[in-house]
């Protein structure tokens, strides 16, 4: 045993026990675990959709329109004779990507701006926070609709629109945390050490914001899924023949009378996924950062 390992050990131990505590609290939360299992299953099913489903999501079969559920077509077929369940599986790819990518973008932007705003204060803080005020005052759906109107309806612009809608609330939370952290002793010590400002912000403050970011991330995914499905439902989101769940509901609603499952089933997929992510988010919040609980 050298002296080095003796010094290093307690810190490593502490980190390991924090992670272990977090995992234990999370795994004891039954709803969160159910949510997690659901999401993992969904991700696998979406990723391996071509191997799971024997049907082609784009193949048109006009002699097999709007069939009821059967052993071949578990949820029946749509107006083009395509298997509804297969369409939902492929739609999951888009809905999940749209849930995750814009959330990551708005998290990145919101974190950088929030830390800058909280740590630097002054004019930076003023400008960033007034921008955030405006973004938050803007009704989210309308803002996203205007972006889609201007830039055109495609997947990339949905990312942009949802990131634009989402960054402001992240920035506000991160700023508040930064304000609290900058008064802590370890930051003061770093400052006294002559550590550069950027190193303090992104080497010392940032790691302490990560637990909050994880919670925000898990809660912004269902929100993004909801916004995307609403945009697609209104016709300014994903365009056919691609299929997100919102679009599937929109297209299916014309045939509510003959085959209600075509519109209802993708909606159930949205509902379950959004709930699962919310359960995971609640579980993570309780495990990582109990102070965020209202």
């Amino acid at each position: 045993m050298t002296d080095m390992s003796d010094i290093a050990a307690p810190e490593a131990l502490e980190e390991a026990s924090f992670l272990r505590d977090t995992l234990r609290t999370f795994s004891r939360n039954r709803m969160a675990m159910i949510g997690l299992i659901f999401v993992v299953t969904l991700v696998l099913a979406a990723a391996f959709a071509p191997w799971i489903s024997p049907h082609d999501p784009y193949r048109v079969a006009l002699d097999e329109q709007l069939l009821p559920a059967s052993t071949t077509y578990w949820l029946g077929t749509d107006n083009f004779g395509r298997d509804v369940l297969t369409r939902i599986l492929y739609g999951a790819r888009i809905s999940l990507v749209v849930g995750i990518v814009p959330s990551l973008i708005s998290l990145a932007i919101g974190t950088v701006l929030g830390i800058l705003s909280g740590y630097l204060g002054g004019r930076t803080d003023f400008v960033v926070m007034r921008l955030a005020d405006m973004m938050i005052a803007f009704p989210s759906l309308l803002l996203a609709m205007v972006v889609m109107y201007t830039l055109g309806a495609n997947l990339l612009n949905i990312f942009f629109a949802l990131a634009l809608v989402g960054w402001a609330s992240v920035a506000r939370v991160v700023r508040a945390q930064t304000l609290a952290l900058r008064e802590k002793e370890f930051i003061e010590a770093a400052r006294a050490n002559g550590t550069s400002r950027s190193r303090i912000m992104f080497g010392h403050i940032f790691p302490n914001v990560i637990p909050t970011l994880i919670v925000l991330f898990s809660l912004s995914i269902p929100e993004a899924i909801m916004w995307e499905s609403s945009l697609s439902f209104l016709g300014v989101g994903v365009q056919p023949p691609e299929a997100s769940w919102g679009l599937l509901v929109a297209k299916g609603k014309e045939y509510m009378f003959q085959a209600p499952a075509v519109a209802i089933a993708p909606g159930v997929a949205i509902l379950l996924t959004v709930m699962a992510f919310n359960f995971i988010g609640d579980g993570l919040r309780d495990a990582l950062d109990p102070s965020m609980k209202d």
Partner: protein
Amino acid sequence: MLMFALRRILVSIPVLIGITLILFIMLNVVPGDPIALMMKEHGSPEVIERVRAQMHLDDPLITRYLRFLWDALHGDLGTSIKLNRPVTDLILKAFPNTLMLAVCAALVSWLIGIPIGILSAVRRDTFLDRFCMGFSLLGVSMPIFWSALLLQYVFAMKLKLLPVSGFYGWRYMVLPALVLGWSSAGVISRLTRSSLLEVMRLDYIRTARAKGLGEAGVITRHALKNALIPVVTIMAIQVAGLLSGAVITEAIFSIPGVGRITVNAISSRDMPLLQGAVLFATVLVILGNLVADILYSVLDPRIRAQMKKEA
């Protein structure tokens, strides 16, 4: 109090101006000619040229923005390209329908949300509490367009109790109000629950209990009065949120309101109409937030005292 209200109003003015600027830039820096795009093959170059001149589209952007702001301040939001009528008229004609939908939906959400919230707080950590909160989460997690379809299917198509869509009387308002109200009932019930739980911990509640007052009396006569303060203030914000949720609801139920104007403006690429409708909705949201803040200070003496100290 008056000072606070005044200061709060002054603070929202730059936010509002900033929003008009963002909105204007987003809608006016469109790649390509909006007029040519809208008229497609119908517009000859001369017609397009004339419309462009009429709308001052060839002026510098800053001039156009200032003119837009000046006109908007005077209640002039331009002319709809598609319908060839003043945007302000179209919006004001549609607004009462949207307002009625929002008010009915708000009522629904309070009638569902507040009792559920109280029930869950009183029976905290029991099966009933978890059930109520699960029900709330269900409401929040359902896409509005989907629950709308579901209710249309059950109540209009199958049971034939209510009309599917359209807007010709109160019967047409039931399903849209239910759909929209249910979607925000979850927020209300969660807030009611947490706020009531917080109040129940305070000293004056302990005093009331010590006096020998029954639990029901403690809640209805003492706790609820304070617990509902944040709920009341969120109502103002909520009405604003309902106005934007109304976009989807109006589109599905064919209610001729501001939300449907917005959707139609997008599909017919009617820029002035879209600009006007979005600006109108945003102003309402800012007003809602303003009212909420002021209401909060009026209702809660603690906030009032704190404000006096700051001022």
